[in-house]
């Protein structure tokens, strides 16, 4: 498969006076159609990295390519932002219009898409995130999870191949988080490339690939099973591992014969109840 995003030796600092780099020499390639989760604790550079991909920030050193387009090339700016749409943390601060469908139309309107085509894209996007019946509502009367789904629909209407989400569930309650994750899994099944930046391990477990960042660098990279079995190492970065992984490793120390890469509750239950 093709690499939709290529990050080559990227370094970034917010101001020239900063001694430390926020992103310090990252190499990462994201394949088309892949669902990648980036985790790391506060200040690990994961949010900065997402803004670099969307060309909101430009790398101090190194290059980033989105669908082969250099993010520091000004003439490609809008193509890049259209190809790699971005959803932010606070659902309230990214909705622009006073009516749901108007907000979803905001992106394609900016691109100068024909009104009939916009209508079609808006309806499609609303249906995909399951919010069609809410299309005439004002956003402030929706729940956090619903607002975040509207924000995702707004990116879908841009026809982005890749969706980058910067901690989209950090401000949501558990049911809102579930709604957003369900939506993301559905989009992934539809062939969208998803880059999810998150705090929550139970979300990362649902991805194809997990990347762990610490101090501006990538420390671990692989499938959830490969990554989460390194419990000791992950804890050093100030992160948790999925509870079930930790439990099964504790059980293993007590002499129960279990593999060390269990990441789902069902897996452990099945093994224990054989």
């Amino acid at each position, binding site marked *: 498969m093709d690499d939709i995003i290529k990050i080559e030796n990227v370094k970034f600092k917010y101001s020239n006076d900063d001694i430390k780099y926020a992103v310090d020499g990252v190499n990462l390639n994201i394949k088309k159609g892949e669902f990648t989760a980036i985790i790391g604790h506060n200040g690990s550079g994961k949010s900065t990295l997402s803004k670099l991909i969307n060309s*909101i920030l430009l790398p101090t050193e190194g290059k980033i390519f989105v669908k082969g387009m250099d993010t520091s090339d000004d003439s490609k700016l809008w193509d890049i*932002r259209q190809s790699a749409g*971005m959803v932010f943390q606070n659902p309230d601060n*990214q909705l*622009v219009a006073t*009516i749901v469908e108007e907000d979803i139309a905001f992106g394609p*309107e*900016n691109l100068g898409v*024909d009104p009939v085509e916009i209508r079609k894209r808006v309806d499609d996007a609303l249906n995909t995130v399951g919010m069609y019946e809410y299309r005439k509502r004002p956003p402030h009367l929706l729940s956090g999870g619903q607002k975040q789904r509207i924000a995702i629909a707004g990116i879908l209407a841009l026809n982005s191949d890749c969706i980058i989400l910067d901690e989209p569930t950090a401000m949501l309650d558990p049911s809102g988080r579930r709604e957003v994750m369900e939506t993301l899994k559905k989009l992934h099944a539809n062939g969208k490339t998803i880059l999810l930046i998150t705090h929550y391990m139970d979300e990362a477990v649902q991805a194809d690939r997990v990347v762990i960042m610490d101090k501006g660098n990538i420390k671990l990279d692989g499938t959830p099973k490969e990554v989460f079995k390194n419990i000791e190492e992950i804890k050093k970065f100030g992160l948790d591992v999925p509870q079930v992984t930790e439990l099964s490793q504790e059980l293993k120390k007590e002499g129960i014969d279990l593999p060390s890469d269990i990441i789902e509750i069902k897996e452990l239950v099945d093994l224990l109840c054989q």
Partner: protein
Amino acid sequence: MFKNLTIGQHYPVDSPVHELDPRVKIIMTFIFIISLFVIDSFFPYLFVIAFLGIAITTSKVPVKFVLKGLRPILMIIAFTFIINLLMTPGRIIFELGFIKITEEGLKQAGFMAIRLTLLIMGTSLLTLTTSPIILTDGIESLLNPYKRFGLPAHELAMMMTIALRFIPTLMEETEKIMKAQKSRGADFESGNIINRAKNLVPLLVPLFISAFRRADELAMAMEARCYRGGENRTRMRQLKINSRDYVASLIFVVYLAAIIITKIW
């Protein structure tokens, strides 16, 4: 306390007046206001009242709602009435100490009171029958031709849309901060006006800081969605003039003709 806040005073029902093109409504309201001030005898106001009556009836907005718009400016109407009554020179018809009421004053005061009342009722009808977002669309579309002279039509409309979008959000936040400060012993309700104003500082400072943060994040989110000003921008909702708008314009022209004829007579 802000939960049921409605922005503006839009009264959402289906009626022919609600469905008129916002541009037609705005222009009609504008000319209607001018017509009120052109009239200088009492008789033509019957036409105005008749026209307003027809408009209100077809709009299906209860008269009570239209009259409610008058409440906040009742004081202003009373004030203009009294000032006009006492300050217009002319033939004195009543005198008590330093108070002199003239015939001209009485007439002038009556005109002003009627004009203001009808003006508020007319403009209320516009905002009652048009949702803020459609009103914004209408204003943007009407201002568009003046872009050539450097008028930032799109920017103004975008500002209005964002303001409308964030009023409920900021209201909610105000309420939250208020509760947080109250729970730590802040007092927003007692004391004289100056003290109360001072007590608002711990409310306004966090509110402003958060509003600036929101503005920053919103700007980034808008850019991420390819926003680059009004250039080459299309709109999903297109304003269209329908036969309904022609009918309304025709009725309005009849009204204007009636006013002009009485004026010439």
